[in-house]
């Protein structure tokens, strides 16, 4: 039996573009287009890509927060798009999400007790309010929050503390799988490192599985076991982080790595940099063939006509590129 907690197969999520009085559909934004991957239990998959590449939509579709267009997502072998409402409710406790902005993802009218405890009561993890309070304090102390803060409201917390509350809320229902959707991007550098350490400790202590979505390559390198690179709705390269960071195959991954500013001021004149031309194309009207060909420095004629195959180049290292696949 495979050890995969999450298996995503040919997942697609299209958003219709509507126009006119009758709101007829004139096209689709292909936010996630035929994505296949799996995450082993207890591992962290980092997902990188630029804005609009569909990484957040992918995360939300995996949790069934958005209905898919086609494809399947299996959680512990169970296809989550086919289970009934009752079963889905149970599965919800196992899958949690932490959002980017801790200012908009906490209800300003609820005290921290209720924010963290609400789901415990709903899912019968705590039988009554007294037990809920006890458990809330417990999970808060795990996230390095103080018990006396439990009766406060979100506006009384700083950004970093709010993100701790969000993490506590996600952990409250004893999940197995957490999606961190840009969970540290809105925080200051010194606070960011505190939260990253906390997420990593929780993952190691509780054996959690993460899908860590971020545009920050250095953070992804730090926290992930495997890394997937997305471009315009597709995963163009995936492999262990060592392979992705030290031996990137796809031209987009290569450009992304070289574009990230380095900490070594001495290397700035000697480092090889690939500066991509142009902007990211619109996902409503993606380029034909390989979607990256309009910005790729290696592109040949075949790239604009044929869609490259998503191939396993070496063991557990997948890439979607004609050049790497040996077409030219």
């Amino acid at each position, binding site marked *: 039996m495979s050890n995969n907690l999450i298996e995503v197969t040919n997942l697609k999520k299209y958003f219709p573009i509507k126009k006119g009085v009758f709101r007829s559909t004139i096209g689709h934004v292909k936010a996630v287009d035929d994505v296949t991957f799996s995450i082993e239990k207890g591992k962290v998959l980092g997902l990188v890509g630029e804005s609009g590449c569909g990484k957040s939509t992918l995360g939300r579709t995996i949790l069934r927060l958005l209905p898919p267009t086609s494809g399947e997502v299996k959680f512990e072998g169970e296809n989550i798009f086919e289970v009934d409402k009752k079963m889905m409710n149970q599965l919800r406790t196992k899958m949690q999400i932490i959002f980017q902005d801790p200012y908009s993802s906490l209800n300003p009218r609820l005290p921290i007790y209720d924010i963290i405890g609400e789901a415990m009561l709903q899912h019968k993890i705590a039988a009554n309010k007294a037990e809920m309070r006890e458990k809330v304090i417990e999970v808060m102390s795990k996230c390095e929050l103080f018990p006396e803060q439990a009766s406060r409201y979100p506006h009384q917390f700083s950004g*970093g503390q709010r993100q701790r509350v969000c993490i506590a809320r996600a952990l409250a229902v004893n999940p197995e799988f957490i999606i961190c959707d840009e969970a540290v991007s809105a925080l200051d550098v010194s606070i960011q490192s505190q939260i990253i350490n906390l997420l990593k400790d929780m993952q190691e202590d509780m054996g959690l599985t993460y899908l860590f979505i971020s545009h920050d390559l250095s953070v992804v390198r730090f926290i992930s076991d495997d890394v997937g690179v997305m471009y315009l709705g597709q995963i163009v390269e995936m492999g262990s982080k060592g392979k992705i960071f030290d031996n990137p195959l796809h031209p987009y991954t290569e450009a992304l790595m070289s574009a990230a500013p380095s900490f070594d001021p001495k290397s700035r004149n000697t480092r090889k940099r690939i500066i991509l031309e142009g902007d990211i194309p619109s996902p409503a009207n993606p380029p034909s063939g390989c979607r990256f060909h309009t910005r790729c420095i290696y592109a040949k004629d075949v790239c604009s006509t044929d869609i490259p195959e998503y191939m396993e180049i070496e063991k557990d290292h997948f890439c979607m590129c004609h050049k790497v696949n040996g077409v030219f």
Partner: protein
Amino acid sequence: MDKNTVLEVKNLKTYFHIEDNIIKAVDDVSFYVLKGETLGIVGESGCGKSVSCMSIVKLIETPPGKYEDGEILFNDRDMLKISDRELRSIRGNDISFIFQEPMTSLNPVFKVGEQLSETMILHRGMTKKEAHEESINLLNRVRIPNPERIINDYPFALSGGMRQRVMIAMALACEPKLLIADEPTTALDVTIQAQVLELMNELKNEIDTSIIFITHDLGVISEMCDRVMVMYAGKVAEVANVETIFGDPKHPYTIGLINSKPDLNTEATRLNVIPGNVPDLNNMPTGCPFHPRCTHALPICSSQYPDEIILSAGHVVSCWLYSSDINDGGSV
């Protein structure tokens, strides 16, 4: 003022009076910018990096803001003392700004070309027609494709990277002596950020302007700047050239900041952390504002703010650890 110095800020204090509180956003800050150099100002949110730069051309709304004390010397004149009329002739002409979010700094109801022309008509006395042609030129220089078409577009029709290019074109329209870039690439994607940074460096060499580059991203600092000023809670913690800041930082906050960011090129198992939170400007710690979070804090740190200590030429740090009164130049 040395003739190589473009701008000199001395003991600037910009406070905000809100209700009965005084918020010391910029508290006794001094720095200078040399001709043709890029000075980076780095710090976390609320450290006063934007307020100190907006004070240079008096862009702070008064009240609630108030320039309590200090001098800002530009062209041998004190910016805090000159008339509004003179100030207007400097803003956008000798000193120009690029802000973080280009969508909010471009006017949504005017075409790109009209906004670009405005500065040139105002400061360079061009006619509408000349300004129009010059606008196309400028857009070409910031590598915008089809400038003839883009000039008639409204800002919403452009992507984030394009808008930031328009902002850069606008800022460079009058070939300023000083360009203040406040988090210009923070809202952009990595690959677009790389394009914009490269463009800024090229243009800087072309027109020989000085740049103040404000950012919270140490990576961008290391790519762009010649000298770096690290700010914390309205004060200057450390100033040095860029190699020294990354190679031999001295202030415990600078060290913490550099260590807390994972490096793209190395593996680590755990991040170093600066404990605690960024202080509330409303309720500032006494003495050195960093002392509650500092692992090397001495008894004196909580009562008295340290003097500036010159460690070597151009390397200045405000920390008791290096004061000869306390010890003989200890190390962190």
